[in-house]
Each structure stands twice: as C-alpha cells, then as structure tokens.
C-alpha cells in the first residue's frame, strides 16, 4: 500500500510538471498581449515595447518559464501584471465562491444520481424506471448554459424565489444571501452532472444485480431489493468513487461557464477575464491551481478506493 501510494504520488508530481509546461506553452500561442491592452488604442509601438519591457515580457520564454517554476517551488503562483496582486491571494479570494459552489453542485449531483440510479435499475422493467432512465439520458445531454437559463426563468423571473444572478456584496458575511445566490447555479451544474451520474449508477447497479452473490442471497429468500441493498450496494459505491474524480473535473468546467452566466465572482469568471486581458502570469497560475486540484482529487480517490476495496488491497 505504501509503495502504491508513493508511486501514485510520483505520478501526481509528474502530471503537475507536464501540466505546467503545457499550460505555459499553450497560452503563449494567443495573439496580442497585455501590454497592448494596457497601452490601448492610442499608444505608439515604441510605447507598447517600453511597457512590454517594464512588465518583463521581453525576457526569453524559456527564462520566463523557469522563473515561474522556480516561484512555484517556493509556493508562489505568480503576480498579476494588471493589478500587481499575488495570484494566490486572488485565487483564495475567488475560491470563496467557487469552492462552495462546487461542493453544493457535487452534493446535488450525488443526491440525484445515486438514489435515482439505483431506483431506475431496480425498476427497469417498470414505467417509472424507464422514465427515469430516458429522462437522465436527456438531461445529461443538456448544455449547462441552457439548463441555467431555464432555471432562472422559472425560479427567479417567474416565481421570484431566488436571485437571478450575482452574489451579495457582503459575501459570506451574509451567509443566508450567499447560499441563496448559489442555489440556482449549483442546481444547474448538479442536475446535469447528476444525470450523468444516474446513468453510471444505473449500469453499475444492473451489473451488481447480475452478480452471483446477489443471486445467491436472493435464492436464500431475500427480495432482490434487499439482496442488492445488503450485498450489492457496497460494490456500486466503489464504482462511484472511481468516477468521482471525473465528476469533479466536470463540475469545475461547469463552474467556469456558470459563473459567467450568473455573474458570480469566482475563479472561473476571473479566469475568463484574465485570458481576455492576456494577464498570462495570472492565467497560468489559475490554470495550474485548477489542474492541481483535479489531479489531487484523483490521487485521493485512488488511494481511498484502494483502502476500501478488499480486492484491490489483495492485489497489491
């Protein structure tokens, strides 16, 4: 187990190193630069060049990359060229919106996906199960933006129950308002992700139903449902753990889109704005933080999976 954990940790570090190089290179492909944007549509080429130099953009790329990685090793994600604030501080500030949003979305996805997935498997020969399964197919295919707009129209515009956009200016000092502001965006992501999870849970449950031990338990006089609940579900749970990493990545991507739509001042919205203004040191810091988060989640999921699944433990 220890050896497995160390190997897996090595992979995580390697993944981060590759990601940092990929992020750095791919951002440099974008046309235009921050100096041009700051100087604006009046500056002479000389002025833009002078600004570029003062921002350190005229240093060779390989050196910029090494400086950045050097900073990363000291725990410094870099500094925004536009506001001069540290990327860590900015990300931490915006994470106050994005992290609760992601957590709420994940909770909703689990609450939808797991029970309904099991139900639709159990009732697969009944109308209800079919409806659930087809409904999930349809929902999983819905673009997040469209789902969000529909929810806004119904719950915010028609019914007026929830705010249609924005985040309270007091932030979490007004926890009630902050939570209310996140309900619709989290529902939007949660329903779409939950529908995907539902389909996954359904097939995992169907697989479990066909397993020998469930059939044996059923033969001993348990109902199929009881047999599944006592013997099959632990295995379904294990399979769910493995897709959680993917789910969380999906939620992060969803958050970028949804924060735009709902004007939430989170990491995703900041990222989009920073790309537009070519604040590349900040963008690469943000992207690496997000990538790192997803990779670490995957790492933790794998370790947990290993710990709780007896078959995997024996294999090591």
């Amino acid at each position: 187990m220890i050896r497995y954990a160390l190997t897996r940790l090595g992979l995580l570090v390697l993944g981060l190193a590759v990601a940092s190089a990929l992020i750095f290179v791919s951002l440099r492909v974008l046309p235009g630069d921050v100096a041009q944007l700051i100087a604006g549509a009046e500056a002479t080429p000389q002025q833009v060049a002078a600004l570029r130099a003062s921002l350190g953009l005229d240093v060779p790329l390989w050196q910029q990359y090494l400086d950045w990685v050097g900073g990363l090793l000291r725990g410094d994600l870099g500094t925004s060229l536009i506001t001069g604030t540290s990327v860590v501080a900015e990300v931490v500030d915006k994470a106050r919106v994005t992290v609760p949003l992601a957590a709420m979305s994940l909770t909703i996805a689990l609450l939808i996906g797991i029970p309904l997935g099991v139900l639709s498997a159990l009732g697969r020969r009944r109308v209800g199960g079919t409806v659930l399964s087809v409904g999930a197919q349809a929902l999983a295919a819905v673009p997040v933006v469209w789902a969000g707009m529909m929810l806004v129209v119904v719950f915010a515009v028609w019914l007026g129950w929830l705010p249609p956009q924005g985040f309270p200016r007091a932030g979490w000092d007004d926890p009630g308002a902050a939570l209310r502001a996140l309900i619709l965006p989290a529902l939007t992501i949660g329903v779409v992700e939950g529908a995907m999870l539902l389909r996954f849970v359904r097939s995992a449950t169907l697989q479990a139903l066909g397993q020998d031990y469930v059939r044996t338990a059923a033969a001993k006089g348990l109902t199929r449902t009881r047999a599944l609940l006592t013997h099959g579900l632990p295995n379904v749970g294990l399979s769910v753990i493995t897709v959680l990493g993917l789910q969380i990545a999906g939620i992060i991507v969803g958050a970028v889109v949804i924060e735009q739509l709902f004007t939430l001042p989170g990491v995703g919205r900041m990222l989009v704005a920073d790309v537009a203004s070519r604040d590349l040191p900040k963008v690469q810091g943000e992207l690496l933080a997000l990538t790192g988060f997803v990779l670490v989640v995957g790492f933790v999921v794998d370790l947990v999976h290993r710990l709780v699944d007896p078959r995997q433990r024996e294999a090591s």
Partner: protein
Amino acid sequence: MLRRAALATSALLIGAVLLTSCTGSNTATTPTGPANPDATLAVGLSLEPSNLDIRHTSGAALEQALIDNVYQGLVTRNGDDDNAIVAALATAWNISPDGLTYTFTLRDGVTFHDGSALTADDVVTSLQTAKDDATIQNSADLANVASIASPDASTVVITLAQPNIDFLFALTGRAGLIFKNGDTTNFQTAANGTGPFRVEAWNTGQSLTLARYDGYWGERAGVAEVVLDYIPDRSAAVNAAVNGDVDVALEIDPELQSQIEGTGNFTIESGLTTDKATLAFNNQRAPLTDQRVREALRLAIDHDALVQTVVAAQTLNGPIPPLDPGYEDLTGSISYNPDRARELLAEAGAENLSLTLTIPNVYPTSIPTFLVSSFADVGVTLKVNSVDFTTWLQDVYTNHDYDLSFVRHVEARDFGNWANPSYYFGYDNPQVQSLYAQSLATTDEQQSSDLLAEAARIVDDEDAADWLFLSAPRAAVSTKVANFPKNSLNVRLPLAGVTVSSE
C-alpha cells in the same frame, strides 16, 4: 494631435440613447418620495475596468467609473449640455487672443480623499508628468504644451507652442486629471482623487463601490454610496433590474426591454452619444484601395434596415457625430442601391470578391450576419473572423492586417484619426490632413467647425469607411432615481447629482 479612439473594449457596449421619441417614454423621472441621503445607488453595467490605474490603463470603463466621480481635472464636460466645457478644479479660465496662453484660477478648499489640500504645485506636477511620461494615457494630448507654471498659489498658466482649439477639451480627459504630488497610493487597486466620491471597495469580477466623500469642495453627493455592478451577460443584467438588484441598468438589450417595462418600476431613458459604429475599410489593401469598391460596399448596406435590426441606434452618414463640432447632416450622401453596387464592382473588375471582416466578439452577431447577407446580395463573399479584443488590437489596430473591421469608436472629437495616415484606417489624404490642422490652429470656433465639416465631407465622399450607425444604447432608470445623467454614458457617468428616494 492624436485623439484617443476609445475603442475601449470596455466602452464597446456602453452608451447612451438617442431619440426620446423612439422609446415613447418620458425622460423626466418623478421620484415618488423625498431623496434619501443615506441611499445606495446600484448601477448595472457590462464592462469592468481591468485595474483602477486610470493614468496608465486604457479602456473607457475606467473613465466612465472614475472621471468626475473620483478624479477631476481643471475642467470637465457636461454631457447633458452638448458636451460644454465646465469648471471643475478651476473656477475660471482665460484664453489669450492668440490662443497660446491659458490662465486658470484654482478653486479654494479642495482636498484629496486622504485629507491633504490641493495645491497649485499638484496641478503643475500632474500636467507636467502627463506631458513628459509617454506611458500616461493620452499623453499626446499635451505634446503641444510649451510650459506649465504657477505664478501664485491660486493660478496656473499653460502656454502652448501652437494654438489648439481642442486643448481645453483635452484637459477634460485623462491627460488633464489632477493627482497629489508624490502620492504613494497603489493606483492599480486603490484611488486618491478630489471628486465627490472615493473608492470604497473593488471586488474584481463583481462590483466597484464608491462612497460619498464628506470633505468634497462642492455640493456633496446625493447618495451615500454608489455600487457599479458589472454584469456582462445581457439577460442577467435585465434580470437584475427586474429583480430590483440594480436601480439603473445601462445599455439594456432592446429585445428584453419589455421585461423591464413590465415591472412598472423603470423608465427607459434616452440620450445622445458620440459612439460611432464604424465599418473600417483597409484603405491600403487592394481591392479596397479602389474607391468604386468601397462605394459599392456602402451602397450594398441598407442602413435603415440595419438600424431597425440593432434597435438602439440611429443612422450616421459621416465620420462626425451630432454632438461633435463639425457635424452636419449628410443624409442622402449614400443610400441603399444594390444594383449600382453590382455595376461599380463590375467596373472595378471586382466580381466574385471575397473579403474578411475582423470583429471583436463582444458585439452582437446580428451585425456581421446582416453584413454577410447584404454583401452576398451584390456578389461579395464576406468571411467573419470573430476575435477577442486583444487579438483585434494586435491584428487590426497595430498590424493593420485586415480587410474590413468593425468596432465602435466611442470617443468624442476623434476626427483626427482620419487625418492620421498611420492610423489603422490607412486613409491618407493630404487635403483632409491640412483642413484638420487648420481646424485646430484657428481660434474661431465657427471657422474650426466649418473646416472640420469640409474635411468630413471629403472622408465621406471618398468612402473611406462606412458608418453603420450611431449607437444609442438604452438605460433603464428606476422611478425612485432622479437626476440620472443621459448623454455619453459610455465614457462619462457623473453621479454626484443623482438621488434615490426612500420609497
């Protein structure tokens, strides 16, 4: 003198409105109760400044938020009075008959938000720095200044090398803003000005909060706090108004206007702008070097139909908008005629022409869509290259690498771009350059205006570009709000006089 084209990514979408008649709403809001001095005014707008450093960072969003509210110059403009130049930190000024010497009397009792008193030295240093430091936005506006001095504590004298009738107007812009000498404020994230509001908080990606400055030299602001809520999504902005999250929503989507009107809590306001939606032709690139081709493209566009599509717009037939000196009504100088367009293209040997339009992705797709079908109708294939604004700046503005381009030039009095052959329009006409230079050099306003009008007619006759429309975005203003400004809100949003009633 180079005038800044505030292609402001930030100003792109912002504007004021025209023709009160077209909205059918009365523009006089009648608040339902007495003004509440402790009120917060929330304004929804779309484009946020990238930082608060108004001296070094481009973008109209900065001017809109900070000039007149937080920072001031010696003079400012009154958008609701034909952009007349009015006193700010100077109480009076005198221009010598030769147009070279400007003598300003400074206002007494002005303090910065940090409490320190404004001195003549602050004024001289601010202007001298803006002139000498090329990294300061609009520094070129002061290039023609020979000297800046203060003979006594309440007087500042500026001497020009040549007369420049636009100089006073230039002082209403960024180059004329007055800062404290040796200020150590971190201007990227904070501010220290002399205006009626101070910057209270800036939540990036969300809002900029301004608080009433109690030490203000003039009449104190009518509300305790202003929150500029940056809401880029147009339907979210409308929802915010409907929901009561904002008291005013600027540049609302006309398609969604009825939702706001349906609440009964808002009036739709109208004003004027200098926001010229410009379809630029690369005058240096064949076949656009051929005037017949340019004219054909203009003839292929049904401007009246386009204005109906855009809704918040009116037609504009030349480079100078109604609010600027030198404006004349050029209606009829070009009118929709696809048959003539086809003839001209045939004459120019430009059948089966294929061109690319480079357009920043902040604009509604209805504009490129309209152009594609208009041009297809006369046998011109238009490819649309939708890019982000930074890419537009590099490809079009800096490298002049484009056929056709669309942006909204929001800035007032920017005709100088047509007299600048190295500008991205690539329009090089010595006669226009000479007329423009004369229009600046004269001290007679009427003569200056006539010369500009003559130059503008030439630019229009030569089809140097097409002015698709004059933007006239609409603002939804709560019935509780009084004295909200109307004109040119895309570049100036002076909020000191605005009040909000209790209920």
